[in-house]
């Protein structure tokens, strides 16, 4: 047992284990079927509610009566069962779990594919579907196949206007959408230690776009400090020299701004190759790039200027929104001509509030550009926050200026 996945799951790669789940969460999208499955399994009273969360984020506030009725039933259940519950506008499930809840060494399961985001803390965090989550509600446990790991060795630091999103798109482009299927990613090396928690969350978030089961960073001084500020004393996780099934060496200094073109996350191109492509919408937000540091970066570029295309900015959580108000960057964003959405997933999944019309093209800081995802016949280009800001100002895809 050497890799962090093996250490946390307590068995060697390839083994099947049953494990208690430290944190299990669902949202308004997956929670409906979870509740139905749990009842069908014979569930009538939740017992281990301190480890369970229900976090509304997918269609917030509800877009119509059908959604509102489904949410009403789920909200009543979550409240009456005493699980941790957050309502519309409090934020995206993964973001809320990152604000001082998930701790290093924990086993975290979310009923959402982007639950891998929490691997940034040195937790084994993975996504499941609704029925698996129902099983966890019923028993507190689930089964895992301990994954082999791909080592992503990071060195150096970012130059120019490259950011964590560009690094994430780089490794997804290199591995391919199924390059890490059934496996975990481990981000190691001195370059990993230089990344902030926000940057690590971006890298872990995209790991599922390479098919990975989890994307982990070892808890280091940066992790300890972040969690200390949020009331937790945690220990370091010291990496050992492990044998990986595959290794990827990435020098952050070589990373350049990229765009993932429709309809795959692994079809990446340098931004400059797409410069001039007219846009109908720019969207900044999501569990990938809706954090305060993202909003601050965006505001820093658009402040005092005017966007040339409709631009929707959605903070990933209410606390991020409040911080953006207090610091004044929200005013900068609004005065640049952008509009602000309720903290949550926004139009990323194509449900509401910012979906695309036929033939419209959107540059988004999200993590998926699948066909029709944000609306039938709409096209999605994925990029960094700086690229989104530069493109919003031009009304077309534009490379960010070198800082």
């Amino acid at each position: 047992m050497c890799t962090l996945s093996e250490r946390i799951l307590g068995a060697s790669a390839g083994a099947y284990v049953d494990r208690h789940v430290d944190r299990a969460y669902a949202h308004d999208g997956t929670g409906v079927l979870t509740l139905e499955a749990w009842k069908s399994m014979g569930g009538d009273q939740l017992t281990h509610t301190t480890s369970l969360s229900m976090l509304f984020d997918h269609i917030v506030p509800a877009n119509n009566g059908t959604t509102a009725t489904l949410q009403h039933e789920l909200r009543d259940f979550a409240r009456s069962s005493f699980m941790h519950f957050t309502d519309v506008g409090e934020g995206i499930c993964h973001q809320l779990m990152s604000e001082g809840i998930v701790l290093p060494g924990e086993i975290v399961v979310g009923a959402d594919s982007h639950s891998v985001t929490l691997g940034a803390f040195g937790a084994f965090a993975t996504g499941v579907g609704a029925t698996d989550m129902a099983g966890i509600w019923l028993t507190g446990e689930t089964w895992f196949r301990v994954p082999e790991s791909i080592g992503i060795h990071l060195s150096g630091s970012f130059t120019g206007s490259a950011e964590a999103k560009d690094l994430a798109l780089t490794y997804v482009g290199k591995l391919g959408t199924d390059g890490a299927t059934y496996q975990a990613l481990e981000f190691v090396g001195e370059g990993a230690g230089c990344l902030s928690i926000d940057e690590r969350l971006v890298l872990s978030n995209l790991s599922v776009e390479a098919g990975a089961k989890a994307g982990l960073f070892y808890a280091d001084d940066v992790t300890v400090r972040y969690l200390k500020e949020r009331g937790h004393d945690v220990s370091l996780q010291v990496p050992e020299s492990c044998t990986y099934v595959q290794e990827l060496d990435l020098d952050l200094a070589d990373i350049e701004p990229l765009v993932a073109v429709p309809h795959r996350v692994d079809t990446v191109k340098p931004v400059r190759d797409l410069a001039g492509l007219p846009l109908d919408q720019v969207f900044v937000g999501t569990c990938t790039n809706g954090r305060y540091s993202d909003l601050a970066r965006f505001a820093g570029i658009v402040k005092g200027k005017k966007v040339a295309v409709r631009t929707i900015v959605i903070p990933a959580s209410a606390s991020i929104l409040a911080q953006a108000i207090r610091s004044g960057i929200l005013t900068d964003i609004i005065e640049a001509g952008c509009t602000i959405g309720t903290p949550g997933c926004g139009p990323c999944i194509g449900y509401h509030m910012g979906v695309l019309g036929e033939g419209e093209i959107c540059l988004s800081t999200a993590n998926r550009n699948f066909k029709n995802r944000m609306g039938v016949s709409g096209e999605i280009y994925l990029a960094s926050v700086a690229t989104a800001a530069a493109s919003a100002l031009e009304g077309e895809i534009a490379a960010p200026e070198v800082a």
Partner: protein
Amino acid sequence: MQGQGNAVCLPADIDTDVMIAGRYLRTKDRSIWAAHVFEDLDPVIAQRLKGAVIIAGKNFGCGSSREQAPVALREAGVVAVIAPTFARIFFRNAINIGLPLIESTLTCPEGSTIRFNLTEGWVETGGNRSAIRPLSPRMQEILTAGGLVEYWRSHR
């Protein structure tokens, strides 16, 4: 566990958004998912899925964790899905709702009869048998029970 059906061929890297689009998820009415399955890929394919064995390329079911995707396939009448690899959440979801998945690399003979036997570990097309990668013992138990709901109903 065994079964058979007519081959319906699909390419590699089919994501769950294309199996059932986000715009149809806000309901518990499974017939809606069955009616719109693969709509953005091929608007008429749903009619061919009754009694079908889907033979797809690698990485079937990548993307979102939405369980409505395998449910839509099952409700549309899909008997089993064969692919070289499956995205892992889809893999768990399908077995959890009782839809057999078979890891095997087959050239897809559109419309031909495909037979499979998970217990004995083979798929057969045109008289040719191919080996399959066996499911883990736990997944076999869950699938044999009919899904995770039925598994837990009988294990508690």
